[in-house]
């Protein structure tokens, strides 16, 4: 018979167990997790996407490759942070806005790994190429919900204001499976890309379907061409799973700034804007309407303008995508910067290919439109540089 003291014992046992269990890390120390305000139904879908993204491992028997780069989505984005040199992608075949001329030779990406018994791809001789570090995942839904009109308002392609910054959108072809945004602005049948190192990807569905195809070698109804045979094949993943992953990526929270009340951090942000970093790394953006209420009409601080900027010859690898030149890169968001080492094995791997091993080194490698800000940074007193770096590490 169940007696009262049984309940007391069970309660004490449960409390004791909870106390013996590890505490949760502080929310602002993690890049992953859902955005606040999702409904229960949205939480369920987020979890489905989380499992598909982080736990579903592909192998030879369930669709991997046979040539590939990674075996699951999460292996390139540990903790939904940026990637590591061991998961870097090599893109090739396009040097200007005229498109990729190596599609018949395996372009636009080298699948440098293969299941046993199969030869992986190799980079064709003399092909223009660049290595891309997998980007940060968090907050993508916020970036996705910024209106095209805002991007165009920030663009200054011909530097009309004379500040040396001439951001412009990357006009790209929209995949037929990607729905047009409600507020989309088109130009000569092209749309504004906003994802990827070159900003050549229109939306998260294209990003996800393309990653399954080019990174894992998994064909879907969206991207049905197998990267090994270059032939159309039956889907190896359900469309519903792809959509769940897209939902997961859209609803990952925005990174939370730490120490934002620290005087050095506050001073560092002032330096950031004073020397011109914020001209491209735009601090505050606002989302437009969104079917996900938690994302609609929200102010957020990603420190990007989602536009292309010429970063000079030092960062010009000779390869590009969409209408970008090979020296142009889409401004990367800086949020979460201080937490990157927790996803990169304890070390910074910054810029598009991870060549910079510290924030300071990444700044030093800025050229082109970023050179003025870099020069100003290098001319700062040491204390101001430290404050600036402290601010960036707080993001």
């Amino acid at each position, binding site marked *: 018979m169940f007696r009262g003291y049984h309940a007391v014992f069970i309660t004490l046992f449960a409390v004791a*167990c909870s106390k*013996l*269990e*590890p505490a949760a890390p502080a929310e602002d120390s993690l890049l992953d997790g859902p955005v606040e305000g999702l409904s229960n139904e949205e939480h369920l879908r987020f979890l489905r996407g989380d499992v598909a993204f982080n736990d579903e491992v592909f192998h030879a028997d369930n669709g991997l490759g046979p040539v590939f780069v990674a075996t699951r989505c999460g292996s390139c984005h*540990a903790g939904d942070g940026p990637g590591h040199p061991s998961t870097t992608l090599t893109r090739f075949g396009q040097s200007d806005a005229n498109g990729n001329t190596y599609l018949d030779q395996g372009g636009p990406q080298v699948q440098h790994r*293969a299941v*046993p*018994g199969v030869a992986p791809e190799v980079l064709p001789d003399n092909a223009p190429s660049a290595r891309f570090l997998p980007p940060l995942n968090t907050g993508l839904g916020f970036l996705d919900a910024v209106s095209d009109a805002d991007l165009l308002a920030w663009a200054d392609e011909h530097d009309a204001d004379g500040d040396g910054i001439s951001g412009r959108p990357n006009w790209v072809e929209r995949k037929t499976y990607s729905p047009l945004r409600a507020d989309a602005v088109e130009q000569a049948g092209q749309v504004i890309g906003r994802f990827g190192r070159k900003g050549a990807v229109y939306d998260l569905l294209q990003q996800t379907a393309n990653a399954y195809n080019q990174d894992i070698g998994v064909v879907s109804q969206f991207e049905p061409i197998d990267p090994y045979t270059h032939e159309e094949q039956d889907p190896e993943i359900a469309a519903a799973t792809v959509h769940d992953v897209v939902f997961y990526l859209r609803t990952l929270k925005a990174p939370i700034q730490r120490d934002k009340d620290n005087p050095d951090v506050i001073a560092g942000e002032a330096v950031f804007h004073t020397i011109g970093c914020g001209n491209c790394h735009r601090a505050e953006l606002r989302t437009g309407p969104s079917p996900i209420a938690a994302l609609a009409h929200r102010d957020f601080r990603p420190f990007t303008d989602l536009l292309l900027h010429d970063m000079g010859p030092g960062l010009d690898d000779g390869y590009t995508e969409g209408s970008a030149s090979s020296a142009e890169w889409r401004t990367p968001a800086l949020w979460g910067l201080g937490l990157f080492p*927790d996803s990169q*094995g304890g070390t910074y791997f910054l810029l598009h290919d991870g060549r910079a091993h510290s924030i300071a080194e990444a700044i030093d490698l800025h050229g082109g439109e970023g050179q003025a800000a870099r020069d100003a940074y290098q001319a700062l007193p040491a204390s101001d540089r430290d404050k600036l770096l402290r601010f960036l590490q707080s993001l």
Partner: protein
Amino acid sequence: MKHALALLFALCVGAAAAQIDSTLLVSPPAPDSTRTPALNMDAVYNRPFLTFDKIPVSLGGYVEAKVQHLGTDGVNDGTSFALQRMTLFVASSIHRRIKFLSEIELEEGGKEIAIEFAALDLEFHPLLNLRGGIVMNPIGAFNQNHDGPKWEFNDRPLMAVRMLPATWSNVGFGVFGKRSSGPWTFGYEAYLTNGFDASIIGNSEDRTSLPAAKRNAERFTESSNGMPLTTAKVAVRHQRFGEIGISTMGGVYNQFQVDGLVLDKRRRVDVIAIDVNTGIKPWGTSLIGEWAWVMVDVPATYTQQYGSAQRGGFLDIVQPLYKGTILGFADAVLNLAVRGEYVDWNVGTFRETNTRIGDEVWAIAPAISFRPVPGTVLRLNYRHERAVDVLGNPPSVTGGLQFGISSYF
């Protein structure tokens, strides 16, 4: 399943004509093998069996159940109960020198049913016995000596079940023998069996995983590639100092050809293990440990997520606190125990950065166990585990309490 068990039972009864060899099919369990001349290799017989007059069949088994409340990084799934496994033994002495024993395990409430051992032993000489059927490959010690009631911890060692594939059974044949001289006992085993398949580098674990091959039940009817897995072990025991064993297991794991057409080169998996079972006699302390290295020929063009080398081990220290009458059990024992364990799933460095690959776990589990009788144990464990991902990022931390029972019957 019930029909299979009934048939097996009937076969055993029908085939056996001689008296049971009571020296092998023992009634009481042997809780501390350091005090008997038996080696770890005898574990398959060193279990309590129920014997019946004039019926040449012995029956036995054990059951394990636990309740746990574990959390990882502040998130827990509440209180969870599990019947980890129920195992049935059926043994028979067909002749004084011909014996049969089977072990059928139902895991997780019957979700998995496996014949872990079903072999016929023929003794030609104490140093030369033939064993055929489904055998437990003698790699390390735990694989053959895995009965729940023998251990003070609710979970099996990570190294034994997630790096090595305990319980790892295969169809095959082999020889074994044992000889004692004074305080020394020497034993050996050598088997050729079916073995692994390519799932060890193509699985849902996203790492090299020998246990992944356990999911292929076809290994009980045919080899995946026609190449036998070789397993061999030698062990020596001194009555005073305990036992040490060295074992090796290896073979080709991939399907390198089909219908005579070559698909790939022959790729090997090899394991070396050392196991120790000793004690500190004056204190009654027992020390049981095992360490193993796994080497796998992973194609250089495959992902580095799947390592070509693994290593890991565990050490159990069990200290009896009190022996005597407890709660009316005359020979009860109260133990304090601790297990330390470690596995590096991917030994090596990244080609791109020349930095160490992570993917490792270590755990410590202090425990209190109560044995009202030698073959029954109640155990309370606290577990603290830290797991690092392949890049070596900050670890995920798991901790919590586990309480369980395990008993022979």
